[in-house]
């Protein structure tokens, strides 16, 4: 009796073990994908091809030509960027998902969106409506929410076909450019947030194909950020240039690399100042039914070039320069504010600030915001501080005149 029980107990153990082992084989790898089976999309573009169809273009990394070009360069053959590392193909469809399924037929490998870091929307499409495109980007699980969004002047298809001389591919170029924060830097998530905000306005970096350098072939160039596309209610309503969009960056605390040149009175030449950090605030106020907004920016700068004879070690001069600098920055911010009020697109998100500060009044006036916004009184206060005169204290021009 005891023996048989033991026997069954052992059998049970063996069976349980076998069940567990077979789990591996049964589940085994059903969703396994080798890297070799993936068409890694590095950038995607969406264009309007006709009234109700759109064209999806993807740039897919081509590991085969990349590895062969690597080998040939190892063999001593140095060609100028030999071999395109990208395969660019497009397909049409009524929606992106539809276009994608058609595009998939043109690829022997599974399209993989996990590394699509740049998504370019053609201007024509952007002028129509982008919400449905954003919907795909946010809904489809493989697409990254931190993919960067760009609006291009030329069809996105042409941008993707570029073969940048310096970087690996166009997505890398655009990514690096937006990282420098010389223009707006907007990810899919940011964009959807902007469009959902009280203001319903958004600014997305606007790119244009840079004319190729002399001597190089047509597509040996990049696309660079030439401004921002301004969106309102999911439609592109216009564009602002780099200078103005930088004014927006100042207010969004996003400026990273900025050089401001000012021309002090009574001397010749410019003094260039490099931005170190900036902190800005929106202070809304409603007084007697007048909507007012105070923009406050505190910035710290270094002198990076001095063409004048001004002695930058003199506190008096510094004071004067700080004053000039804040005037200059005010001018830039003012330009952005004016532009956005003129377009009636609240890209600075004044709406949010008012909403937070005066929730009750906001609720009442939310429907009239389009009328209110252009009328908002904007006051700009810039507090510029010059931290250091740079690594030399005497201006170069003084050497000749004062130096013995």
């Amino acid at each position, binding site marked *: 009796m005891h023996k048989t029980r033991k026997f069954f107990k052992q059998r049970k153990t063996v069976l349980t073990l076998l069940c567990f082992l077979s789990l*591996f084989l049964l589940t085994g790898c059903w*969703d396994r994908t080798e*890297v*070799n089976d993936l068409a890694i999309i590095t950038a995607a573009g969406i264009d309007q091809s006709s009234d109700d169809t759109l064209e999806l273009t993807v740039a897919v990394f081509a*590991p085969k030509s990349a590895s062969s070009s*690597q080998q040939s360069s190892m063999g001593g053959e140095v060609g100028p960027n030999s071999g395109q590392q990208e395969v660019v193909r497009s397909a049409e469809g009524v929606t992106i998902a539809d276009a994608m399924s058609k595009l998939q037929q043109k690829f022997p490998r599974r399209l993989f969106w*996990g590394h699509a870091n740049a998504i370019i929307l053609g201007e024509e499409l952007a002028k129509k409506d982008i919400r449905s495109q954003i919907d795909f980007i946010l809904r489809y699980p493989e697409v990254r929410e931190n993919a960067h969004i760009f609006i291009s002047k030329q069809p996105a298809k042409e941008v993707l076909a570029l073969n940048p001389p310096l970087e690996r591919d166009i997505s890398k170029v655009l990514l690096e450019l937006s990282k420098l924060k010389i223009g707006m830097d907007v990810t899919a998530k940011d964009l959807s947030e902007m469009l959902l905000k009280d203001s319903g306005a958004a600014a997305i970096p606007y790119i244009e194909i840079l004319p190729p350098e002399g001597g190089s072939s047509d597509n040996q160039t990049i696309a660079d950020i030439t401004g921002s596309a301004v969106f309102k209610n999911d439609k592109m309503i216009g564009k602002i240039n780099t200078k103005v969009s930088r004014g927006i960056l100042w207010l969004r605390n996003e400026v990273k690399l900025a050089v401001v040149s000012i021309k002090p009175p009574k001397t010749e030449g410019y003094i260039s100042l490099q931005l170190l950090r900036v902190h800005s605030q929106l202070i809304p106020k409603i007084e007697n039914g007048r909507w007012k907004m105070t923009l406050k920016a505190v910035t710290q700068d270094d002198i990076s070039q001095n063409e004048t004879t001004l002695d930058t070690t003199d506190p008096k001069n510094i004071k004067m320069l700080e004053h000039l600098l804040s005037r200059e920055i005010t001018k830039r911010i003012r330009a952005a504010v004016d532009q956005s009020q003129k377009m009636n697109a609240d890209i600075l998100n004044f709406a949010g600030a008012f909403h937070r500060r005066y929730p009750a009044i906001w609720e009442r006036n939310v429907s009239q915001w389009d009328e209110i916004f252009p009328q908002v009184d904007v006051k700009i206060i810039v507090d510029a501080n010059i931290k250091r005169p740079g690594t030399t204290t005497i201006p170069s021009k003084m050497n000749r005149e004062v130096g013995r």
Partner: protein
Amino acid sequence: MVRFIKKPPKKKKRTHIEEKIDTNLGPDALSSSLEDNLEKLKSIYSNCADVIFRPFLIGHSSKAALIYIQGLSDYEEIDDSVLSPLMEQTFTVPANVKAIIEEKLTISGIKEVHTIKEAVEQISSGNPVVLVDQNSIGIAVGLAKWEKRSIEEPTAESVVRGPREGFIETLMINTSMLRRKIKSPNLKMKSLNIGKETKTQVMIAYIEGIVDRTLIEEITNRLKRIDIDGVLESGYIEEFIEDHPYSPFPQVLTTERPDVAAANLLEGRAAILIDGTPFALIVPVTLYSLLQSPEDYYERFLIGTMLRWLRYVFLLIALTLPSFYVAILTFHQEMVPTTLLLTVAKSREEVPFPALVEALIMEITFEVLREAGLRLPKQVGSAVSIVGALVIGDAAVNSGLVSAPMVMVVAITGIASFSIPRYNAAIAFRMLRFPMIFLAGTLGLLGIMLGLIAIIVHLSTIRSFGVPYLSPMAPMDASAMKDSLLRMPLWAFRRRPHLTGKYNKNRQAPHQKPSPTKGTE
């Protein structure tokens, strides 16, 4: 698995070793007739050409015999101190052998033997026995001496700073090395003989007053339970005294270094020294003690701490790096930086195998190379390293069978596993790497997490002689972190680590942190 399918063997009635020997030899006391005694011994040692029976006359009058085994005794000393004083002079043989011992034999290690069994034990262990006619007591002279290896630096546990001596195959020398380090009479050595045929001497060394007495009792009991025919290496003992025989993790620490053994004795552990092997077993152990090197304590404490952390990190790498690589490459391609993925994709383009197979091929090849390099005679060893460099190297990549990043991963994993100072612990983790790769290849990161959880659950279940394997981490003992996560300065180790049961808490006097004022006092 086999155990589950096979019927478990019937429990045999356990016969005590001592009894077995008795039935073999008979409980006979030595008789007073030399003839009888010799006859019995000769029948015991029948067909033993190396046992020498040397008859002679004591004092030119009384018959006697010297019995010894070739090569186990000091011949010169036998001639000078036993045979010549007894044979060269004429004297009347006293009725009692004691008188012979007192008057004639100029030897310190003398023992009387009363039974045949005792005589056989002495002869077998190398001490020649003198039997005198008309005397029922034999004399065993302690002249055992055989060729032994000189004391060398242990190759498996080398240190930059620290003593260079290692245990050797002779138990006596090993105990003397321990005794030289710990001169206190509290250092106790309990002797046992294990092995029906080999009768190997095993010593339990511990320090009275530091060790928990029940621990010694437990060790003694477990050792006494062993009933096998031979003990040729400490591994034979290890497998019989472990708490969890199916666990992949070692539950005793093996060391060749007397300083390691002494340090562990001072922390309240016990060492089991076994004749015939330079490896001493130390119990109880924890996972952390297996990850320590003696040098942690010999170098400055900051360096010791850093090295420990390096080992902990590389332990994880050794266990999981290939599986992480496989998981990310087959399931989670979106998790790596774009440039890295593109580089990997480029190098994997020509590889015909899936990442899982690629990893297994490379890992198995690496293990085989390691094993082959270990087993081969030294002269051929260099051939293996050349082939190895080709296999795990450029040629492997150029042939297109594996990708370069995989070679890198396998190489790092290999190096990482070598950074674990204890071979038996390192090999456990190396072995677990393979199931981890399988889990990663089938279930991705989820599989890796499952595997890690299973390993941690197992580790926290097992004990070594009553001490939880993960202590002092689980159960948590904050004060013991001083010597597990960190290596605090030696003057901060005021208390001994708590192992089990009662123990002597205080290790040293408090407030010994050096400072200038103290120096001038």
